[in-house]
């Protein structure tokens, strides 16, 4: 059972910053001289970025009653290659990421193309809190209370034409703000894609926050995609462009390694990644692996999208 009470304090302040740093300083004091541990001496990379509260989030029937991961886990274990390829790097290198002003351009096969400011994005539809399972292709998972609304609300505003069959997403890319991106080893800017019916599915979210606050940079500020039945890399971060198109658009990891990462990338315990099994996953904070669920447990809602498709072929 999930007991929700109104949060007076922001999640990012659950562990007071001052205490956090004092703890590190205390640790660093005595042993650092012996250990020569760089991390202990250097200023901690765990500063918490500026986020602000998102009030009046509506509850959603799509939420899972499972236990949420801690804010610390979700903000210090990230795959965001533009800010470094190690899991702890985005928290350090994205800290000063400028997300204001921001423009999200929605264009292509639409009747009313439009450039959205961040404020526009926040007012397309009422913001909801949706607690989703998030399953990474690397076989770890988390449970996150996202804030946002169904992407369909935004797509309906721009009115896709009859030619629109797919939706292409593009993330922000700027070496000036993302110097680590030069070592990412993947083609950037990051691009992703969905079939139009997948993008219009009510579970597919345009996400502007998590844990009742705006998104921190390492989790894809200021606006990202969340597609809970697909592997995490499909949920592109820090979106600058959404383009409705006629043909299946490219997606970054498929370009990088087509035999390992497909276009669909639905969570599927029966189709292994060539280098590891997808049958199980490790939920962060848990010791034993748990079985991975078909479509990450969202099969009742989304399985019909893929009726008649060979999911081994379209992995």
């Amino acid at each position, binding site marked *: 059972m999930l007991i929700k009470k109104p949060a007076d304090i922001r999640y990012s302040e659950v562990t007071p910053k001052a205490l956090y740093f004092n703890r590190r300083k205390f640790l660093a004091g005595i042993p650092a001289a012996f250990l020569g541990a760089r991390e202990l001496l250097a200023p901690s990379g765990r500063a918490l970025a500026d986020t602000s509260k998102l009030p009046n989030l509506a509850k959603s029937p799509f939420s899972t009653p499972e236990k949420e991961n801690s804010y610390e886990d979700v903000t210090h274990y990230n795959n965001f290659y533009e800010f470094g390829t190690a899991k702890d790097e985005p928290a350090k290198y994205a800290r000063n990421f400028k997300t204001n002003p921001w423009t999200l351009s929605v264009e292509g096969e639409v009747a009313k193309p439009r450039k959205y400011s961040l404020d526009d994005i926040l007012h397309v539809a009422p913001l909801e809190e949706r607690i989703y399972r998030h399953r990474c292709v690397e076989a*770890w998972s988390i449970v996150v209370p996202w804030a946002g609304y169904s992407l369909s609300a935004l797509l309906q505003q721009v009115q896709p034409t009859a030619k629109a069959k797919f939706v292409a997403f593009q993330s922000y890319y700027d070496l000036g703000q993302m110097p680590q991106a030069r*070592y990412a080893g993947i083609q950037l800017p990051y691009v992703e894609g969905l079939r139009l019916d997948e993008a219009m599915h009510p579970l597919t979210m345009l996400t502007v926050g998590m844990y009742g606050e705006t998104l921190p940079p390492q989790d894809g500020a200021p606006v990202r995609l969340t597609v809970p039945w697909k592997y995490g890399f499909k949920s592109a971060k820090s979106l600058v462009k959404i383009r409705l198109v006629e043909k299946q658009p490219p997606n970054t990891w498929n370009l990088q390694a087509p035999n390992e990462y497909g276009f669909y990338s639905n969570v599927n315990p029966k189709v292994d990644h060539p280098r*590891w099994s997808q*049958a*199980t996953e*490790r939920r962060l904070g848990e010791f034993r692996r748990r079985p991975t669920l078909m479509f990450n447990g969202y099969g009742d809602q989304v399985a019909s999208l893929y009726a008649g498709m060979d999911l081994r072929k379209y992995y």
Partner: protein
Amino acid sequence: MLRSRWAKVAVFLLCLVPFGRLAWRAWNGDLTPNPIEYITHFTGDWAIRLVVATLAVTPLRKLLHLPDLIRFRRMIGLFAFFYASLHFATWFGLDKFFDMHEILKDFTKRPFIIAGLTAFLSMTPLAVTSTKCWIRRLGGRRWQALHRLVYVTACAAVVHYYWLVESDIRWPLVYGSLVAILLAYQAGSWWRKRRTPAAAKTVGGAAS
């Protein structure tokens, strides 16, 4: 200074520093949100670093004119095996939780696991035969030939690492280049020895 008994103690303690750091972080609950992955990567990193270090001993002896460095090679090699064992045990016990079905599937189907296993298995006879008793039993020449397996270990470890990373191949390339340089150096000296059999004899004799 290198001949001192304390030098060996110092190297021993130095090789234990990474283990101490890991234990310290574990004690403080500071092993990142995914502790098992962190321990796996940490012990794997130190295993490959120390394998490279053992390969570097012979070239460094010659280049720096410090023949006494040989005193530390066995210890560094055994520490490499120590970290590799922790790495393997973490994967086997903590990550896979002794799930033999999954483990056997990995052994047969996943090239990067096979490379890692090759590296680990090729180290095992070297660790076993690292004692003076075994050198005597095998004879210097045969012992030396056996211990050239360390090049298999090093190459397999680099391949294991390279196949593991997604796209950022900087570290595998660093280790790969070091192993390539050290292997080329050693190959060069073997080749020179072949051309001058007399020199080979003295080196072989000194080792046994």
